């Protein structure tokens, strides 16, 4: 696993690049660990409060530990009418967690999201940002089997 200091260091010359650093940190850790956030704040010359302000403003950034696979279920109107609610219920049942939680083995985190821009094949979910189309409750075991 890469060192968070190296990740921050390699992005430090990007003007306003703190969000880019957060993305790079999440790519490695799936969330922004506290010590990495504080180090990023120091390198970019902003206060810890400002860094937290940024990290907690955006839906795709998290300061809470998350699982290896982040499953996002789109709730926006086109997915809503296509049955996103049933997909959410089935996913919660299958994983045994509620939206916003992580499975006890640290594998899956379930999140709700707004439109992911794949509305040609609703309902849509994403797993680590990879879109999966025309999802139904019945397809869930097969879909998740590909994410071990």
């Amino acid at each position: 696993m890469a060192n968070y200091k190296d990740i921050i260091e390699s992005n430090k010359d990007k003007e306003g690049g703190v969000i880019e650093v957060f993305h790079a940190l999440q790519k490695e850790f799936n969330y922004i660990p506290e010590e990495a956030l504080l180090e990023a704040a120091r390198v970019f010359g902003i206060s810890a409060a400002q860094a937290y302000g940024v990290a907690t403003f955006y839906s795709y950034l998290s300061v809470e530990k998350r699982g290896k696979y982040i499953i996002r279920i789109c709730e926006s109107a086109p997915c809503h009418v296509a049955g996103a609610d049933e997909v959410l219920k089935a996913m919660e049942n299958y994983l045994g967690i509620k939206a916003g939680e992580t499975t006890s083995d640290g594998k899956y985190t379930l999140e709700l999201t707004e439109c992911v821009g794949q509305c040609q094949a609703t309902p849509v979910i994403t797993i680590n940002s990879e879109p999966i189309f025309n999802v139904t409750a019945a397809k869930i075991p097969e879909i998740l089997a590909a994410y071990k």
Partner: protein
Amino acid sequence: MAEERRVLLEYADKINPENAQDYINVGGYKGLEKARKMDSKDLIQEVKRSGLRGRGGAGFNAGLKWSFVPPAEVKYVVCNLDEGEPGTYKDRIICEKNAQALLEGMAICGAAINSNQGYIYCRGEYPFIVELLRNAINSAKESGALGDFDIEVRMGAGAYVCGEETALIESIEGHRGEPRFKPPFPGVEGLWGVPTVVNNVETFACLPYIIENGADWFAGIGAQKYPGTKVLTLTGDIEKATYFEVPTDYLLKDVIYELGGGIKGGKKFKAVQVGGTSGAFIPEQNLNTPIDFDSMGAMGAALGSGAAFVMDETRDIVDIVTRISKFFEHESCGKCNPCREGTFRCREIMEKINSGRGTEKDIDNLLLLGRVMKKAALCGLGQAAPIPILSTIEHFKHEYSRKLLQYA
């Protein structure tokens, strides 16, 4: 006449969007070559004369926007690829099919305002497009086509409000994506305080064709006051849920019944919401309207991003609008009170009505609250948030009435 007219998407799936040479082989980068030989004032005049208006939703004349940029040592060209309007994916399609046209368009804008640095702000939901664009930029730089014009891609992180141009700028600067007070507009004081042109992906992608074929050619396509083509995305209860590029005088009913193949499963039409989730709901009697900005505006709707979300006769309008009101509550950045409180109260009242606990008084309150938000919210998010509610109360009042308490 009900056919597509492909300009931006003419070579869709025939060329590799990452490969500059593919694009050059089908006539790409000729517009930029021509633009670089023109005096910048003439270039801006040509874009102005073409009548090209912003494709992100605001419909402002692109050349006119550029003409406000004052002389300065450093200026930026920023591309808004933060399409977050539910039902919209046309900017993704333009990148996936013709990314080089976007890069060329940005460089043409750079030539017009004398800037050699561009930024593309891509929404966080599209990391694969960020990669595609970085490859496309490398290919274009290697081919020499972009000359000294550089483009950097920055990725957002899931905030709808960052589609607002000043919030987008704040986000590139590494801040929370909260809109700024205007004026000053970005054209005068934008990214890092210097003059910045922010345009939508589709607006930039039109430019190579305008410069190569001339302003008159472009002005002659589609609607007179909003010329050119528009990439539309169809979603919901429609046979062909996909994208199309049409001239802007194309009728909404033809979008649904000709290109879209009609309502799914042979059901009847109930409503279409055009322009994304912030758009108005349009009833059947208004379908015989061209999709251009002004025609849509004249009937109280908006072309917006060009998304068309179709609902069949079985759909529950109040339930859908309740879901939409949750979207705006979630996406409100919280900077201004009319939006922060307004979107919260809208959602609260909509849920009350949707669950059968509402009264006529709640509908009156929604109308009043909606009027206040439209006038008093700081940015387009809060101003547009009540539109789905107000337009459905106008056209589908019976659906609200039958859920009210006295009828339960």
